[in-house]
């Protein structure tokens, strides 16, 4: 990987972008891949004009933030897993579990907040099981998460027999209406900011975050440094599960209802957002700030490409090409030192 092995402490300190970085690493801003993706994002905003005459507009930015919220939450979980050198393919099933359980508990008379918390906790447990199996049995993460994801999907299908769709609690659905505002800004955007803050904090300001970097760089070295690799792995997958579950709850509210397919479209974009955001797919480096920029960039591109009126084939080609350009950009940024 171009960024090489990063010292977890330094990487965590250089955090999201130059603004929050301490003075010491400011001269290295050109090496900061996350910053490059943010610049790319800011460049793409006015370039949206090419796609539609009504862009850029306030409604464009509002839409990017609202639709980007789901990807930002899911990619946070995926990003943590990728950081430890794994990859999580149970995203779709976990998102579905979060949405399904919230909806069905609420329908059964449980208060919405309790239903959402129970659902998210169930997803945490599923994530922790992923981590436990990966750590204890030493199987590759992608195959374990694929297996657990498949089992979970089948269990949901069996349990949901005949009624896979769930309604959303009214209050949850109301959060996503654009007229639901706080200080004049749609609540969904506040949610985005809250998620961004929590994600940055967990990945860059907690011991767990530091240990995740350490495990991703070298399991052996982490062990030598007395990091409990097993505990870190289980916690990281558990937190990732929490994020997917939360995304499920949010998607249930956004669509004011969800069926079991709700998580399906998010698996590959979540990996793409992490990698476009400058993380190494083999683990050990990457920032949540970069992932956030990646998630917003992919969402913006989705909207722009949709606005061009190109046929579906061309849309996918453009989408793929822009991801490659973003990857090239962040790689060049990593090399220039």
């Amino acid at each position, binding site marked *: 990987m171009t960024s090489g092995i990063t010292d977890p402490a330094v990487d965590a300190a250089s955090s999201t972008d130059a603004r929050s970085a301490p003075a010491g690493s400011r001269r290295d801003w050109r090496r900061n891949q996350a910053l490059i993706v943010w610049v790319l994002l800011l460049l793409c905003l006015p370039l949206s004009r090419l796609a539609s005459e009504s862009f850029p507009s306030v409604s464009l930015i509002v839409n990017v933030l609202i639709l980007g919220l789901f990807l930002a939450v899911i990619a946070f979980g995926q990003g943590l897993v990728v950081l430890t050198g794994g990859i999580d393919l149970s995203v779709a099933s976990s998102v579905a579990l979060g949405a399904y359980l919230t909806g069905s508990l609420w329908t059964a008379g449980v208060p919405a907040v309790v239903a959402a918390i129970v659902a998210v906790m169930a997803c945490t447990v599923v994530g922790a099981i992923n981590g436990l199996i990966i750590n204890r049995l030493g199987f590759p993460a992608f195959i374990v998460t694929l297996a657990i994801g498949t089992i979970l999907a089948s269990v949901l299908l069996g349990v949901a027999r005949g009624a896979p769709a769930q309604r959303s609690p009214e209050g949850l659905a109301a959060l996503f209406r654009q007229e639901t505002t706080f200080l004049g800004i749609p609540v969904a955007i506040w949610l985005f900011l809250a998620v961004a803050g929590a994600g940055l904090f967990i990945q860059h300001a907690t011991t767990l975050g530091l240990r995740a970097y350490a495990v991703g760089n070298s399991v052996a070295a982490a062990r030598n440094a007395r990091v409990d690799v097993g505990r870190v792995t289980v916690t990281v997958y558990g937190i990732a599960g929490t994020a997917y579950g939360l995304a499920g709850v949010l998607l249930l509210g956004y669509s004011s209802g969800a069926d079991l397919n709700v998580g399906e479209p998010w698996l590959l974009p979540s990996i793409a957002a992490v990698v476009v955001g400058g993380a190494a797919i083999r683990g050990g480096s990457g920032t949540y700030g970069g992932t956030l920029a990646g998630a917003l960039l992919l969402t913006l591109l989705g909207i722009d490409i*949709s606005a061009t009126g190109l046929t579906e084939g061309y849309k996918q080609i453009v989408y793929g090409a822009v991801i490659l350009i973003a990857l090239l950009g962040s790689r060049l940024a990593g090399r220039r030192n």
Partner: protein
Amino acid sequence: MTRWRSVTTGIAAVIAAATLVLSACADPDAGRDKIFLDLSYSGNNWQDEAANLALSVANSPEYAGKYVVRKQISGTDIQKQISDLQSMIAAKAKLVVLYPLSPSALSPTIRQGCERGVTFVAYDSTVREPCAYNVAFITGARVDDPRDAFFGAQTAEGLAQMLHGKGKIFMNRGVPGTATDQVHYETAKAVFDRYPGISVVAEYYGKWDSAVSQQETAKALAAHPDVDGIWSQDGEVGVVKALQAAGKKIPVTGENGNYFRKMLSQGWPGISSGSPPAQAGVAMRIGLRILEHGPDSVPHNIEMPLPWVTTATAKPCPGNEFVGGCNFFPNESDTFVTEIFQKDLLPQSSLAAAKTGQPMTGLKPLDAVTAFAQPEWRRVYTRGKCDSGWREGDVTGVQNPSGLPGCVQDRQ
């Protein structure tokens, strides 16, 4: 590590023992003919309702003693469906009712099955292999006027009229690359092209999924806030929700989602038509009729009539049945697909049958299926070619809209 190994060995031993015990049990199905229901991905309301309706027909008291029915989920992978069908043929199936994933890829397998005496009935989507039966709405005509054919063309015509022939519209398509999406889109586009005042400003794929349709519609609305109407395939519930989030109330045509009908009944301008899950129940009835009374007088191409519900006719059902012309269930989930009933072909259906597969009662043998045979001039859409004595050409005079491509009689 040793501890784990012994645990694993223990688990393996338990599984092996369980398998032995299970296989040692006597076969409770002995003496009953085998029926298989093969569906695509399950997990959305449409597929589950369709499967339940088919099962509730096969498990009805009239048939349960004679047949045993198994459900198989083939997912979205055509290879998996081929291998599932082959297993069913090997297991000596008498009848396979299936949701086909491809019109042509299953042909060799289906032909092989037909040669071994298996009856195949495809629902919703169609297969081209001539020995199989198709029960499909794709080319079907409106339930209120048998001359008005094609979901795509009819809803497009309806939208154009609501817009008085002019305005900017979106088209929310289905799953890219499927034959069904293609027929809907092409027949709709052919209609829109006749209205010079109508321009399609955005086209996107909602993948017959409410959540995807909602996100795609939200994206298109960001670029074209001045849109005047939306033509949608399945996923219209998401379309309406995206419009509501943006504070717009414009005409929408779509399929049979519960929430969409509810909004229509509250005055939202639009038309609800499209794919009825009842098709699967009808397909099972057709298959059972062939098993019981032979294939005589059962047409190979059966058209499911197109439901047609408008702002004026949308009406909530007070209970669990379609009574008094009601057409949606206000207490069911938003994406529940309302068309679980067909007055001629599946009158015994109920909400319980669609939701749990509860066996239907009072099923009488189907008669007069011939009334629902697909006319020869629409054959090319479902079988890929015209019948002998017919050739491809523009069809005029027998259906609305006139002039769509189809089959015309050879005049030699």
